């Protein structure tokens, strides 16, 4: 499955993903590994918790005065000879970038990994305009060759095996190569090195931009970010308006927690600080530097219910810990940004109507809040979204009846106790080995999991017993 078909209901998309045995294994291995690496990194970094609070406050401080910081950023980028463009919509952003490409006479654009350019569907637009877009992050390169979309924010090709990649390279690059990650990587290095040296246009996202200095910051592990900002004649950086930070001192706070949250590294291999085009005296570097500031629904949320989602650093930590993402992977979500934060970002970009189903693709367990480097309260916003999109009742009638009754019961202690004793008797035909394996009318709840049987003694009965024993 290359790309989720949005005409298919989410439940069915998720179901297909769960039947894909390879995807299931890849997801489990990848997310478990990322969780472990992240935990180790923070365990070895006691000041990390304090820095997460600090980072959160910086985001809040920046958003409260976003006008001031953006003006400062724009002034400083221009001071160093860069040009700044503001794009209200994805279409405007595409038009700006195509115009830059046309003026530069560009035939090929090398890109370093950027969710913002995915978000505005830039590659299709470049192709139509006769500019060949080449993704240079290895994972992105693989999925571009396969005509697919990323399945994970930081590991875009985790859904593919090395065997599939070797076949793909064989078919698309006409080169035979063993199914070995090292050999495959070296082949891609050679292919892409040529492109870096030929391309007229370099397109990147931006992890941060420093208002005080007009510096755009790129974080990569492979070095493609450095290539794209050094070799082509024109560099375009595309960035959501919320990515601005006030100063270099603030930047260091984010750098200290970003890679730890994403991959468990203390720092990513390359952090590249770009302040405008090639400076006088420099042998190389782009002649033109453009910064495209992207709104695309963000500004509306400055005072909106999804405001806190604007803190997001795009590290992917919430994907790895999410019990839903871990089961269904990125494609089933069907939009640019997967996972718990992806639901919120999708609502931000495309309106709440676009997440009617997705707003429910969460157990609200809160693991994402714990993993998020800036502690975004994703479940709170998901609940608000559900309230907003749920004029239509989507739960089956039986669930609504049961939940209403249970709600009523839970506020009446005596009846609740009685209900426990009744359930103990009524459940008998369905219990085997201490669990309810299937329950009539609740097939969806018990098809892939078991419900623990009602205990033979309730907590309150045991508590009373214990109290009597201790008093004796």
């Amino acid at each position, binding site marked *: 499955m290359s790309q989720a078909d949005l005409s298919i209901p989410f439940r069915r998309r998720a179901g297909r993903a769960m039947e894909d045995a390879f995807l299931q294994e890849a997801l489990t291995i*990848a997310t478990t590994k990322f969780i472990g690496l992240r935990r180790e990194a923070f365990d070895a970094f006691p000041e990390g918790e304090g820095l997460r609070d600090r980072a959160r*406050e*910086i985001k*809040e*401080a920046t958003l*409260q*005065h*976003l*006008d001031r910081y*953006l003006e400062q950023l724009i002034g400083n980028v221009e001071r160093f000879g860069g040009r700044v463009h503001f794009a209200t919509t994805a279409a405007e952003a595409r038009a700006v970038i195509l115009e830059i490409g046309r003026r530069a006479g560009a035939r090929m654009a090398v890109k370093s990994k950027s969710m913002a350019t995915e978000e505005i569907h830039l590659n299709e637009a470049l192709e139509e305009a006769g500019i060949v877009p080449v993704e240079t992050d*290895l*994972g992105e390169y*693989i999925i571009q060759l396969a005509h697919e979309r990323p399945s994970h924010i930081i590991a*875009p*090709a*985790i859904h593919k*095996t*090395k065997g599939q990649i070797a076949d793909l390279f064989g078919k698309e690059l006409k080169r035979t190569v063993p199914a070995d*990650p*090292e050999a*495959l*990587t070296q082949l891609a*290095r050679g292919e892409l*090195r040529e492109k*870096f040296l030929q391309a007229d246009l370099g397109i990147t996202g931006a992890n941060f931009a420093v208002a*005080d200095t007009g510096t755009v910051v790129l974080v990569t*592990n*492979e*070095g*493609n970010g*450095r*290539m794209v900002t*050094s*070799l082509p004649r024109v560099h375009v950086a595309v960035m959501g308006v919320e990515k601005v930070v006030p*100063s*270099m001192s603030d*930047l*260091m706070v984010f*750098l*200290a927690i970003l890679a730890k949250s994403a991959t468990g590294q*203390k*720092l*990513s*291999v*390359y*952090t*590249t*600080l*770009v*302040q405008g085009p*090639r*400076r006088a*005296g*420099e*042998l*190389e*570097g782009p002649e033109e530097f453009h910064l495209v500031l992207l709104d695309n629904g963000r*500004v509306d949320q*400055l*005072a909106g219910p999804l405001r806190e989602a604007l803190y997001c650093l795009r590290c992917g930590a919430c994907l790895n810990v999410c019990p839903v993402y871990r089961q269904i992977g990125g494609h089933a979500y069907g939009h640019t940004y997967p996972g718990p934060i992806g639901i919120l970002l999708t609502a931000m970009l495309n309106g709440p109507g676009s997440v009617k189903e997705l707003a429910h693709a969460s157990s609200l367990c809160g693991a994402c809040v714990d993993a998020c480097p800036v502690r975004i309260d994703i479940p709170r916003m998901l609940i608000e979204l559900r309230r907003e999109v749920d004029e239509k009742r989507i739960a089956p009638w039986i669930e609504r009846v049961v939940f209403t009754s249970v709600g009523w019961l839970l506020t009446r202690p005596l009846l609740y106790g009685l209900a426990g004793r009744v359930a103990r008797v009524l459940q008998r035909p369905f219990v085997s080995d201490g669990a309810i394996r299937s329950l009539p009318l609740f097939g969806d709840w018990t098809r892939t999991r078991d419900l623990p049987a009602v205990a033979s003694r309730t907590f309150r009965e045991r508590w009373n017993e214990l109290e009597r024993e201790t008093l004796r």
Partner: protein
Amino acid sequence: MARIRAELGKTRGLPPAEPTRRPERPRVEAEAIRAELAERWPEALERFRRELEKVGGVFYRVATLAEVVPVVAGIARDRAARRLVSWHAAELGGDLGPALTAQGLEPVAMPPGEVPSAAERQRLRELVAAAELGLTGADLAIAETGTLVLSSGAGRPRSTSLLPPYHIALFDRTALVESLAQAGVFLELWHADGEPGPRGAVISFITGPSRTADIELTLTRGVHGPKEVHAIFVEASIRG
């Protein structure tokens, strides 16, 4: 911008939040860091070595700039490499060209400034792209993360540390800092008004060799950038 202001106007009454405290006088704080490190540098250097090795880098320590030559020659010999490009001598702290040539290498130093001729720039780019070894200095070495910080500029092109598969960087005690926070003070200093800032448009933090885990999460080195990073600490000062 008007729309942003209108939206922000609706958010009054949020709990106040402050960005990070910035050094009021970055020069004074930077000097304080250097003064502290005049005592503590051996511990910081040891930590830098440990962290660099953790990310797959190789550490060396030599007494003088002249002693760098046999180390570089050794790295080249073990990899059957000869072609070396380097920053301009003024940016490296000295001219190692003749000594490297005597060791059987083919060193080419980058020009001290801009090159007006497009053909000449193209020739240099091809030369760098074909080189096996890239020799640079470093403006900071961050102990906490094993990171080398290189600012671009005249005589110090970006590609020297990027295109060749083996990157060798020289640094001395004055480059050493303990933490990312301390590195932040130097970044503030370089960008402060009236201070001699970074000469070029790019500052690169380099933490070990280029890597990816995009194929089945298998760690692979040298995707686009160098597959090896060697950091040589020179005890004698190599910067003015």
